[in-house]
């Protein structure tokens, strides 16, 4: 009995160590690399915006602005009151842009979490156990590769509900496939290593080897895929929203562009489309820059997906 807590402690300890190492390593790597630094600064800025966006937005993004003569302030250009102009329905573009930051990062980070947790688990399990477990998991991965994500999303959201929850869930359920494949192949080569084989001969249990020996070694890949999946899911979620299948209760950059396009307002109010697009590019590019820098410095052997 007495050995169990000790085992548990060391297991938690080494995992904690590797997690904190994982948290610090990207920082050390990014520091001194221009591309990585730029990405990090932009992402931190966006995180702050996501937190305080609604507080600093000059207007409620849903409030329609009525002119003094009683008409709707529709598709107005930039002015002192509306630095980025108004929408077709007289709503403030800047406020929508600020509030939309939260949706984008929420979708990005939550989806990436599902992707990394699922992908890492599947990759580790398939790679470590091999045999029929591997066959089944990899066939499932093949099948998921056969699902075209945007068309699939359109149908699922129509059948179920157009909500941010389902969008995140569905993107996470598809995008783990790349992560799982790469982690599996990494595990296959790790298994050849001495330290894993010696752990096996000393009779360590499978879950113990997976958690203690393999997981810490694949965590850098998981981190990388966290960055990439954040980027993919923000772009895909915006595409879904642009086609009109986004969450109608939330202000998002994708839905801003959907509304602008659908009301034929792009020529009168180009900022309504240009700004959310630029925000997406900025957000996604920042996580890709971080991912690529990390990939180059931490593990040049990987063939990145960014």
């Amino acid at each position, binding site marked *: 009995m007495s050995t169990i807590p000790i085992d548990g402690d060391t297991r938690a300890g080494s995992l904690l160590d590797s997690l904190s190492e994982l948290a610090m390593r990207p920082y050390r790597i990014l520091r001194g690399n221009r591309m990585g630094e730029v990405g990090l600064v932009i992402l931190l800025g966006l995180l702050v915006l996501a937190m305080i966006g609604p507080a600093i937005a000059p207007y409620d993004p849903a409030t329609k602005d009525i002119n003094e003569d009683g008409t709707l302030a529709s598709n107005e250009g930039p002015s002192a009151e509306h630095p980025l102009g108004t929408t077709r329905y007289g709503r403030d573009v800047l406020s929508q842009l600020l509030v939309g930051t939260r949706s984008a990062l929420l979708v990005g980070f939550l989806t990436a979490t599902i992707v990394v947790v699922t992908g890492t688990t599947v990759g580790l399990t398939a790679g470590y156990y091999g045999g029929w477990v591997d066959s089944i998991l990899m066939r499932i991965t093949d099948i998921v590769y056969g699902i075209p994500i*945007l*068309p699939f999303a359109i149908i699922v959201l129509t059948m179920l509900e157009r909500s941010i929850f389902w969008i995140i869930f569905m993107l996470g359920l598809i995008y783990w496939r790349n992560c799982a494949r790469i982690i599996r192949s990494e595990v296959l080569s790790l298994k050849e290593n001495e330290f894993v084989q010696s752990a096996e001969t000393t009779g360590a249990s499978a879950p113990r080897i997976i958690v203690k020996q393999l997981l810490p070694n694949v965590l850098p890949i998981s981190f990388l895929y966290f960055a990439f999946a954040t980027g993919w899911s923000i772009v895909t979620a915006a595409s879904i929203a642009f*086609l009109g299948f986004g969450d109608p209760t939330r202000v998002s950059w994708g839905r801003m562009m959907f509304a602008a396009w659908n009301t034929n307002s792009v020529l009168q109010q180009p900022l309504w*489309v240009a700004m959310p*697009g630029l925000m997406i*590019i900025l957000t*996604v590019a920042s996580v890709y820059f971080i991912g690529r820098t990390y990939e180059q410095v931490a593990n040049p052997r990987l063939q990145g997906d*960014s």
Partner: protein
Amino acid sequence: MGAKGYIARRAAQSVVTIFVVAVLMFVLFRLMPGDPTAVALSPALDESVQQEMARQYGLNQPLHIQFIRYMASVVTLDFGYSFFQNEPVRDILMRRIGNTLLLMGTGLLLAYAFGTSIGALAAWKRGSFDTRVLVSAVLFRSTPVFWLALVLLYVFGFHLEWFPIGHMVDAEATYSGFLDKVFSVDFLHHLVLPVLSTVPFYMAYPLLLMRTTMLRIEGEDFITMAHAKGVRDRDVFAKHAARNSLLPIVTTAPIVVGLAVAGNVLVETIYSWPGVGRTLVQAVLQSDYPLAQAAFLMIAVIVIVGNFVADLLYTVIDPRITYD
């Protein structure tokens, strides 16, 4: 196992994948909470028409009968009539699949041609050219296809009026057949903006991958050896460095096909391109579910066949492949 056995096995796996995706669709369409007919049938239609359609499409049958009928329709490619266009779903899609493949194929072809050559050049030349290419590629990869499509549409279509703002050909133009249409200047003129909207996004992936692989391959001994043999620089670059870097490019092609399928849905919608993607979006919005279901399956088949073709290509370009 030899190459033939390997290919046969991959083909069988592809068929299984198509089957599983088809079953998934059935589940999604029929097992949703609530009355399946309510989900499937447009509430805009009046009661008697709804009843008649439910009967015609077998929606009031027990589920297992519905499933058998559905799988039979997948195998025979007979998906019945569209709810809104009085025409068999198969005829509608057959007319449009060519348009989709044409747009997607052109985009992918250009993306791979430019992506691999620019990526290879960046790795070969290095320095500031490489940095500029790298940063541009990451920005391309971050730019949503629909946003670029909108920007190009408004700048070159509406504003400058250099290119048409939608459709495949002029409304007044008549063509004797598909090939006649495709090889017309009119068509190419319509093709420019949709293709330009997708190429940057599609090409970023092969570009970045090609660059990374080239940088690794350039350090290989056989590259030094080729130089030592007195092989000309451009041949070392093309025949050895670039040729070897193509291997991962082919293995990852399914990822790009996946991107292209999504991209096509978006540009078809924006440029009113009569393809399968736009058909899908419209069918879903109109609750024209036989059409939506079949359009989705057709897109899935494009993806799955794309994956299979990549497998085939790989057996051709890598002599070391082992079939286990």
